[in-house]
């Protein structure tokens, strides 16, 4: 019997008892009081009659017993509304001397008093009254009270029991509500008995444990769910749990599938509903958080490496630009066939290779200048397929699966091609022998959780580019370092270790994300997600044909903080007839322009400069002369601090190290008023 039923039974019994009292007590009291009243009344009447009769006796002591008429008259004197009575006067022998009798029904109440003659008893007077009317009245009173008693019983029973039931329902609702809170809390709740066996789990705990509540009931916590290496420590910690104190611990939790999850537990000593001692623990699944933390650490590491690499590459670019300009100038001084010209050309080729490495590093560090425009990723992938196929051996099969729908993204198609090329060649090199490389692209929607897991900032629609190979795969240790520059598993001399770093840099610069999943012997999957644009991809204008190498006589303002590069550029421009006004930074550039704005026909600005960057310097120059043409020159797209990219606007951008011919063509085009030529890719 449950407690509520027990209480209900007690209430029923109490209600019955009270009702019985309520029904029976008033008649009993009434009967008792009435009996007392009747007895008292009889005694009083006997007393009164005895006084009168005693007078008769005193007046005629010898013959009083024959004064029947007078005695009967006394006995007949009754109150107006008298009860039926039997009144008798007896002599000492008990003979009835006189009586006045109504019909009395048993039971009767009788009172008797002695009749005295000078203090000596000579007879008795007896007065009796039937108790039946009293009993009937008491019974009627009881019957009259019965409905009230029933009402009282119903009230006494149903109201408290109703309240108890309502309380029980409220408690059940509260329990259900609490259970639902527990279920939606996203926190696992586990209750253990004194022997640390599971007695209760919530829905979240079921999910964390990978088993239903029925399956885990009675299982020992430590031996079933704690990783063997941590059992002793966890047992020791649980043993320290105290009432009113919350103990925090974290351990790897074993699941039936064999996988582990990391949980943080908050444990306290708590009794169950029956008062039995035990433990109550709430656990938060930190598995994903720990993974994200690892990813964050990894990303921060890559960011640091990238910043270092970018800085180095930037400096290298400037140096290489100087080398290339002087080498080009030197080459023009030697006739073809001259061995010295060949040496100079080797210098130029080496500079180009060095520039390529620097460019890769810049790409990884996301400081590569990106000519981003809306493009259809599907078209880019199909175009890249033509570039990629010749690179693969005949025993490698390439599958390209592209969605029919357009996949508009804001991207530099050349860089995206680079990504595809790098991933496919990376897969090719990983497979080694015969195998399959599958490249696919499609649109997908990621919710917040999925986006976070993929390393993206926001949920939304993304273009998913996936490169899968069935190669040997790699373990977690390799996976953790995949995107580090110069990290390679290839033999020395067979890889630069920059391929995946470049991919990482490009994807990051496109505000996308790349993930990799692989296990040894199970191939590898690289998944890239780029934000999808809402609108269709506009038709790209055809690139203008490259203009012929020409010089001029105009005056050009050149702002470049790198002295060596500035000098070589001044020399190059002056050699083809231009007058050059030099500036070492953005502020100086503005001052020089202000001083000579009537004659300055074009401003050539390095983007990243101390004090004032090229973009802001041009903005101020444009305040003085809004129509002056300009060109930007840059080795990377971020400012010196590397904190943010510099929006360049519609002005053309020349990438360092710039080819002298390319620079002169671009200058001439701007002076001649060619409108917004397409960005010129550096050699």
């Amino acid at each position, binding site marked *: 019997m449950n407690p509520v039923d027990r209480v209900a039974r007690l209430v029923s019994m109490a209600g019955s008892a009270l009702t019985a009292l309520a029904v029976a007590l008033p008649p009993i009291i009434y009967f008792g009081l009435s009996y007392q009243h009747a007895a008292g009344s009889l005694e009083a009447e006997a007393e009164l009659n005895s006084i009168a009769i005693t007078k008769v006796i005193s007046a005629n002591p*010898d*013959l*009083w*017993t024959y004064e029947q*008429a*007078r005695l009967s*008259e*006394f006995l007949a004197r009754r109150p107006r509304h008298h009860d039926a009575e039997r009144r008798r006067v007896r002599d000492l022998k008990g003979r009835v001397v006189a009586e006045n009798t109504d019909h009395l029904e048993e039971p009767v109440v009788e009172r008797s008093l002695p009749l005295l003659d000078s203090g000596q008893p000579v007879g008795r007077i007896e007065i009796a009254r039937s108790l039946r009317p009293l009993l009937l009245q008491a019974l009627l009173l009881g019957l009259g009270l019965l409905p009230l008693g029933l009402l009282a019983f119903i009230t006494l029973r149903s109201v408290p029991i109703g309240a108890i039931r309502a309380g029980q329902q409220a408690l059940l609702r509260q329990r259900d509500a609490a259970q639902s809170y527990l279920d939606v809390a996203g926190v696992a709740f586990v209750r253990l008995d004194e022997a640390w066996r599971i007695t209760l789990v919530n829905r979240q705990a079921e999910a964390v444990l990978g088993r239903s509540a029925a399956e885990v009931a009675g299982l020992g916590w430590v031996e079933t769910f704690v990783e063997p290496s941590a059992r002793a420590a966890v047992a020791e910690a649980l043993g320290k749990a105290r009432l009113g104190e919350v103990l925090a611990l974290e351990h790897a939790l074993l699941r039936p599938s064999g996988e582990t999850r990391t949980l943080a537990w908050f444990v306290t000593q708590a009794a169950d509903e029956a008062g039995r001692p035990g433990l109550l623990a709430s656990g938060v699944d930190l598995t994903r958080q720990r993974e994200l933390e690892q990813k964050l650490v990894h990303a921060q590491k890559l960011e640091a490496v990238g910043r270092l690499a970018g800085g180095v590459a930037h400096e290298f670019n400037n140096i290489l630009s100087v080398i290339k300009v002087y080498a080009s100038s030197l080459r023009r001084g030697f006739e073809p066939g001259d061995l010295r010209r060949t040496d100079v050309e080797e210098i130029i080729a080496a500079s180009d290779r060095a520039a390529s490495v620097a460019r890769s590093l810049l790409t990884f560090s996301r400081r590569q200048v990106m000519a981003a425009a809306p493009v259809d990723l599907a078209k880019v992938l199909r175009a890249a397929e033509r570039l990629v196929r010749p690179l693969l051996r005949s025993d490698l099969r390439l599958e390209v699966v592209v969605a029919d729908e357009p996949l508009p993204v804001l991207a530099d198609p050349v860089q995206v091609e680079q990504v595809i090329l790098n991933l496919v060649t990376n897969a090719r090199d990983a497979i080694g022998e015969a195998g399959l490389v599958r490249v696919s692209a499609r649109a997908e929607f990621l919710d917040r959780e999925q986006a976070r897991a993929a390393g993206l900032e926001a949920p939304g629609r993304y273009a998913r580019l996936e490169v899968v190979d069935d190669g040997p795969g790699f373990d977690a240790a390799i996976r953790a370092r995949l995107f580090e520059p110069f990290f390679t598993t290839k033999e020395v001399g067979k890889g630069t270790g920059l391929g995946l770093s470049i991919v990482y840099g490009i994807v990051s610069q496109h505000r996308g994300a790349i993930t990799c999943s692989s296990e040894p012997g199970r191939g590898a999957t690289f998944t890239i997600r780029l934000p999808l644009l809402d609108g269709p991809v506009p038709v790209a204008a055809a690139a203008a044909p490259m203009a012929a190498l020409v010089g001029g006589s105009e005056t050009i303002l050149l702002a470049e903080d790198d002295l060596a590069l500035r000098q070589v550029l001044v020399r190059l421009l002056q050699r083809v007839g231009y007058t050059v006004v030099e500036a070492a930074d953005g502020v100086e550039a503005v001052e020089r322009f202000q001083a000579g704005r009537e004659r300055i026909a074009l401003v050539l600005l390095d983007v990243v400069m101390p004090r004032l960057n090229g973009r802001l310097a041009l903005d101020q120059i444009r305040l003085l002369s809004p129509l002056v043409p300009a060109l930007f020159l840059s080795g990377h797209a971020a400012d010196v601090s590397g904190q943010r990219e510099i929006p360049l606007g519609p002005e053309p951008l020349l990438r360092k190290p710039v080819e002298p011919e390319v620079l002169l063509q671009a200058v001439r085009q701007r002076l001649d008023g060619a409108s917004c030529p397409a960005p010129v890719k550096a050699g």
Partner: protein
Amino acid sequence: MTLGGGPGLRLLLAMGALLFGPAPGAARELLRVSGTGTALGTFRQLIPAFERVNPGVTVKLLPSVGSSGAIQAVAEGALDLGVSGRPLAPREQARGLVAMAYARTPFVFAAGPRVSATGLEAAQLVRIYRGEVTTWPDGERVRLVLRPRTDVDTVFIRAISPELDAAMEVALGREGLVLAATNQDCNEALARTPGSVGPTTLSQLLTESHSLRPLDWNGVTPTIVNLTSGAYPLGKTLWVVSRSVPPAAVTRFIAFLGSQEANRILERTGNLPVPPPPRP
């Protein structure tokens, strides 16, 4: 059996008493007498006269126990001679008792203080008993004194006429009326109650010192003369009761009741002596 009172019998009884009376010096014979209150006043005067002629007999007049009480007391030997206002009932005769009528006295309706009326009409009395007349002509409230239902006087009144019989039934059911248990009580109640009216006898009026006014009945004054002449119709007969074989003193007393002296006393006290029954 009832003995009718006759001069022959009385003479015989008187002679017997003289012949068989106790010799001088012998133990005195005690004669215990009681009965209806109507006769007690008369007996107080009869007894000394009897004792004078019967020196060996001491008559003890006990307080009134009423007619029925006296009959029962005689039957049980508690009395030697009873005085009753009614004859014996058959069950009383069956107990070996005999009764002899010795006098008649006018049955009177008397009025108490502050009543100026001098007479009653039968119809008026009926209305008084019914409660329809509640005041005397002078405005005084009529205060009716009743006797118990079984009392001889009540039975006597109910026998006067059917109207009075019915009116008495109504009166006995009325509340707040004075009820007197004995004749003496009745006279006392009448005497102390202003505006009262109730039954008594001329004998009582003459022998008890109460200032009550006997009322004329239908215009006839209750006197021995009117009773004797029949003009006054309401006469109450008085009886002496004894065992069938009474003590000698009883016999002598009964004989004395027929004597000249006794008759004088009876008449003086408002009684009309009843002649002894004829000798068989």
